[in-house]
């Protein structure tokens, strides 16, 4: 957590910059309003912090107009300043100081997360239930590796879990899989500013991980991987568990020869870079290595900045639901324009969001599904 002096100095420094990152912000590019450029959102945070404006829900809402993609860091003139982190810190302060100022939808998400155990929870469909029963039979009740199923996969994209567990087994692991016991990692409520509640969620998750006595956790969700490591660390929850994304796991096992690509995939694929994987966890080339390992696959990687680098996915539920959808639609159009047969996503949320808007002629595949096809 930033102290007041550091927080205010960074806010001031950001607002002095003439919006050098404006073009990169997906929210600004949809809303077109100057108040939601990264620098102007920080200006609102500064006005609130200095007490220049009262924390009304209308004013506080500007702090939530961020999809946490960190694309603004690509153009930031400063090395030590991240707008989404400043906005998150500003939200935390508002939540702590004046809860009644929060926009209604923020409280609704919190209520859902606390009532249902996840901000994305839904009732399981019969198909999902069957898949999960099948998965339990593939996995081990004990062991030192846990496959942590994020809530999007759990409720909306069970096929990602199926492919992940298959890959883990192919690589010689006997993973534990305990979806009904896993608590919510708290990433989304942390991003919304509910630091204390995110701490409780994290504490509960850590207790669970300690109780099942594993040494290593593998997850298909970059957001969960981030929260279990850097997010927990920022909340003061320390642990020595090894946390891996499926991307890291696949890359490591391709190098070690425990996973072997056997099938050529004669397809053209465009990659939807996940902002958490690329900019929060700073993927060190694992993705590139994975794609290069598949013969026949023509891969289109978008630039990491500018129009083509804008993500399809929003990690903070945005106040105007149409903004979040528009961000995905804009990205979907760019993907379709490439003429690719497949869109390869690297997070369950991206697959869920894109699947809702992409026509049936283009297939959206998570990277674990892609590799599963290649190593069969």
């Amino acid at each position, binding site marked *: 957590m930033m102290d007041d002096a550091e927080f205010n100095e960074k806010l001031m420094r950001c607002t*002095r910059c003439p919006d050098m990152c404006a073009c*990169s912000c997906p929210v600004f590019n949809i809303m077109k309003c100057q108040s939601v450029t990264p620098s102007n959102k920080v200006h609102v945070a500064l*006005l609130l912090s*200095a007490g220049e*404006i009262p924390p009304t829900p209308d004013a506080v809402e500007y702090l939530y107009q961020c999809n946490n993609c960190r694309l603004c860091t690509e153009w930031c003139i400063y090395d030590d300043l991240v707008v989404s982190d400043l906005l998150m810190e500003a939200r935390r302060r508002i939540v702590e100081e004046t809860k009644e100022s929060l926009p209604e939808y923020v409280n609704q998400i919190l209520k859902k997360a606390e009532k249902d155990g996840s901000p994305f929870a839904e009732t399981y469909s019969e198909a999902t239930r069957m898949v999960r029963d099948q998965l339990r039979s593939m996995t081990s009740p004990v062991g030192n590796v846990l496959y942590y199923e994020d809530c999007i996969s759990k409720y909306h994209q069970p096929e990602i879990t199926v492919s992940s567990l298959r890959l883990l087994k192919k690589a010689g692991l006997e993973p534990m899989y305990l979806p009904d016991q896993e608590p919510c990692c708290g990433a989304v409520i942390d991003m919304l500013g509910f630091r204390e509640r995110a701490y409780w969620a994290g504490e509960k998750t850590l207790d669970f991980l300690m109780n099942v006595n594993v040494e290593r956790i593998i997850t298909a969700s970059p957001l969960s991987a981030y929260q279990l490591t850097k997010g927990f660390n920022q909340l003061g929850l320390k642990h020595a568990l090894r946390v891996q994304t499926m991307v890291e796991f696949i890359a490591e096992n391709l190098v070690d020869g425990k996973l072997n690509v056997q099938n050529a995939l004669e397809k053209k694929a465009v990659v939807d870079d996940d902002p958490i994987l690329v900019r929060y966890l700073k993927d060190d080339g694992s993705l590139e290595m994975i794609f290069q390992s598949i013969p026949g696959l023509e891969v289109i990687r978008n630039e990491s900045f500018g129009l083509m680098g804008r993500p399809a996915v929003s990690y903070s539920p945005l106040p105007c639901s149409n903004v979040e959808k528009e961000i995905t639609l804009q990205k979907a159009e760019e993907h379709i324009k490439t003429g690719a047969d497949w869109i390869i996503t690297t997070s369950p949320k991206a697959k869920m969001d894109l699947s809702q808007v992409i026509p049936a002629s283009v297939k959206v595949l998570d990277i674990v599904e892609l590799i599963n096809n290649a190593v069969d």
Partner: protein
Amino acid sequence: MEVRELDPQPRHPKAFQELVEALGESWVSAQPIDRTSYSFDVWPIVAYQVHKGQVPYPPDLIVWPKNEDEIARVIDIARKHVLPIVPYAGGSGCVGGIVPVKGGITLDVKRMDKILSLDREALTVTVEAGILLQTLEDSLQAEGYTLGHFPQSMHSAAVGGTVAHNGIGTFSTKYGKFDDMVLGMNVVLPNGRIVKINPTPKRSTGPNLNELFLGSEGTLGIVSQVTLKIHHAPQKRIFQAFAVPNMRLGLDLARLVIQHDIKPAVVRLYDKIEGKGLLFETLEIEDDVCLLLFIYEGFEELIDLEAKTGKEICVNNGGKDLGPDPAVYWYEKKRFDVRHYLSKTKGPSQIADTLEIAATWDKLADLYYAVRDAMEQYPCRSMGHSSHIYPQGANLYMIFFADVGSEEWEDVEKVYSQILNATFETCRKNGGTISHHHGIGMAKKQWMTLEHGSTGMEVLRKVKNTLDPDNIMNPGKLGLGE
């Protein structure tokens, strides 16, 4: 006025309601925070006040039309309710051009951000005025082309604003100024009618209407669509840097290169002070020299010859070859970096600005030294560079950092105004122009007569009065009346 004092209720409820009916609820705002965000640009005088919680000139309403018809409807409503209209594109200007000095309606064109057509045969692109420059360049590069327009503000600036202030990019020596790039445009006039200037490479049909609207800063109409020249993306880039003992010799080398019909994309000559702050500390170059950078780009064989000849000219006339690194460093790390300027003004007693002037070669070196002397009569540090080169002359980008010694805003503003006055008086005495590419806005309007003379100003005022008799288009700018 302080931000907290802004009334959340619309000041002109009838106009507000009519605008909502015309554009839809989502595209009209009277919110205090939006009014604050649209009250300033990068002009230090307003930006500094807003950062301190003040809002000197908030618009009453902000609208986001989606097409020319909606712009015309906004104009109708503004005329009916006698409200000024301030056209707004990227908001990245640095002379207060978009500051709603009389309140009224700020009309943001950013919803009009489409690429309407890309002509690969004619090498032109037609775009709506609200497209951001970076977004346009990304899209062109994805197709193998470039606009060649790379101002420092390109991540926040939009095409409409670039037309309005007649801007320029850092690669101007090869690709030209924005007025060289514009072939045609549509402008919605203050009476709601649309003038459509057909894009052709050249015409002889009376005064050039493109030139009338380029640099008019939204005082004559609202630019809605623009057709621009584009180029094939370069095959190759060559970087060069030379040390020169003083600005006079540096300007001479730049002149010799350009007058041999060699066209580098980038030419930048930094004086000893700015160069030291910007490049020398990192690059371990001897710090008592001026630094001359060149970047050539284009078709390989052509630029190989240009770069070879340019280098020979520089080395044979007193330049010391530093290799490519300083130019590569500028290209990769510094061309969009504004920290250099921002870091110098930390306290409330400090203010800085950049004044971009220009003159012909015969006057240029004298003008550089005279302006620095003029600035330094006041409590400030001055420095500068030249970065846009023509066969007949070049610009000078003069920078000052003032520490007034008083935290009273009136004192800071007074010294700021004195430095500008001294600079522009010196500039005119030495045959220069008071603005090469930032425009006039509010910042320089009081020196417009110095630039154009009273007869020139009369011409401009008559044009303004004819097109906008009610003075609703961006009043208080360009010195054309309040």
